[in-house]
């Protein structure tokens, strides 16, 4: 049973510059939640708050009913994992070594590396199709391969709730779909709760069970993609005039921007 992750009246910001003011959000267990919003609307900040990377100035983030800030870090790490937008890789690190570091929260003071760790790392690499890259150095890989390796590391951490900050940015469309399919597969097969920030509204609508639309540090819509991605909400959140049509592949709402020239170029 996945523990419930909730933001309860949290205010978040950097160096006392508030970005999010008393926001409430309940992450739906076992679902894929996608957070969308304009630049600087507080999407990443919210994700960091949920992953206790940022201490709330007010309110609290709770996991299983208890304040996440008061729980031991390693214990939280076995339940909630976050893949930052631009993680840092040490020079010359190999793929296996990097994926293996995801196992850290499962290791004790003296219990270092076990065969279970080996199996989970192998499974994570199989799921992300990075097995054949095992001995390669991360810096020698392409952008798409690198992102799959980072996701393998996050999967090796084996959290019940996986948070991802723009996992598809800097990837071409093929690799974006590849990454999202991989996360969908993980969610459907293992029941892993996924919360991610995406920029592409159409991909967000297609992959989300649940969509959270943000503007200026607050949530303006929260629910099924079909209910949240309306022309009114898009106008309000993004200052963008758009028509919403059903996605011909899956029927999810598809946002077609109108633009100043109505496409007459």
């Amino acid at each position: 049973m996945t523990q419930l992750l909730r933001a309860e009246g949290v205010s978040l910001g950097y160096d006392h510059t508030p970005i999010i003011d008393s926001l409430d959000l309940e992450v739906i267990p076992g679902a894929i939640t996608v957070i969308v919003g304009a630049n600087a609307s507080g999407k990443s900040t919210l994700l960091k708050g949920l992953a206790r990377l940022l201490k709330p100035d007010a309110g609290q983030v709770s996991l299983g009913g208890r304040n996440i800030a008061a729980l031991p870090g390693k214990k939280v790490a076995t339940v909630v994992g976050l893949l930052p937008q631009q993680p840092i890789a040490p020079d010359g690190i190999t793929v296996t070594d990097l994926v293996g570091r995801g196992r850290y929260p499962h290791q004790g003071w003296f219990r270092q590396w076990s065969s279970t760790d080996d199996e989970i790392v192998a499974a994570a690499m199989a799921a992300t199709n990075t097995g054949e890259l095992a001995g390669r150095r991360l810096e020698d890989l392409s952008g798409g391969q690198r992102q799959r390796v980072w996701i393998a590391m996050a999967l090796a951490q084996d959290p019940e709730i996986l948070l991802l900050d723009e996992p598809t940015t800097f990837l071409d469309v093929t690799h974006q779909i590849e990454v999202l399919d991989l996360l969908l597969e993980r969610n459907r097969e293992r029941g892993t709760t996924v919360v991610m920030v995406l920029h592409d509204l159409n991909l967000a609508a297609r992959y989300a069970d649940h969509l959270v639309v943000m503007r200026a540090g607050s949530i303006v819509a929260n629910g099924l993609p079909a209910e949240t991605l309306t022309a009114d909400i898009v106008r309000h959140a993004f200052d963008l005039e758009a028509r919403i049509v059903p996605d011909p592949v899956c029927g999810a709402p598809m946002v077609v921007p109108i633009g100043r020239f109505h496409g007459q170029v």
Partner: protein
Amino acid sequence: MTTHARVQRTRRNRSVVLVLVGAVVIVAAFSLAVGAYSLSVPDLLRTLAGQGTQSENFIVLSLRLPRLTLALLVGVAFALSGALFQTVLRNPLASPDIIGVTGGASAAAVFGMLILGFGSIATSLAAFVGAIIVACVIYLLARRGGVVGYRFVLIGVGVAFMVQGLLGYLLSRADLNDAQGALLWLVGSVSGAGWQDIALVAVVLLVLLPVIRVLSGRLGALQLGDDLATSLGVGAERTRLVLLVIAVALAATATAAVGPLAFVAFVAAPIARRVLGTGGLALIPAALVGALITTVADFTAQHLLPGQLELPAGIITGAIGAPYLLWLIATSNKTGKGA
């Protein structure tokens, strides 16, 4: 697939460690056997087993063994200190000899020697305190909502210059003979190693090595950046502070024992990581590389230079380290990772 890669990596790690241990043993044997009075290998083994003649016992056990032991221990201490600094601050220039931590030890030691007339034990103590003070100053200046590697390094380099200025002032004011003694200390030398120096460094290592072993997992997580480290359950700021304290203690102890052996801390971990080539932390290979550098440097300084000149080991380590520093600066800007 993964398991295979891991097995390969472990095997590579093990063979690198074995080769390094072998090299250290060979250098150690040379250091004990070769000199004005040279021994054959059987004679050396006999002497080490306690069956030597009186003169063999004196030369090997009382003169050469302490010197070798101290060189090995400070090599390990400097190397691990450098490896921790560089890894925690994610910057190859962040080593105690570049950012002024060993410089602080030197200034305090020289101040003790020249102004306060300290003897050798008090000088060591002064060096230790000096390193700690400088490290605290850098940490407090660099701390602004969290310590960032490059800021720590830049402030450290600035502090190092200030310390150099202070040293120059102290030396220029001193009596010529005293100044020469101080200068010798400033180069760093393992000659005249006493068992109390050895015991001090050994005890510090015995306490800190297991701690480093336990913390190495956290260090691995910290390498991935603060966000990911926190996500993996590692308190980034606190872990960094603990690891820096350990690194400072290692550098301070080693400097107190032998003076600031230039560049050992700076080059050991990068060399070990390059040899290993797996991108791992390579703390054990780094420690062995450090021990190898100090022992080879001391042997070279004693026996391999032309003329009957015997130099302090610090001259040799400096001669190795300076070109590496130049190479690092020359290449790091190419890859856009300027210090």
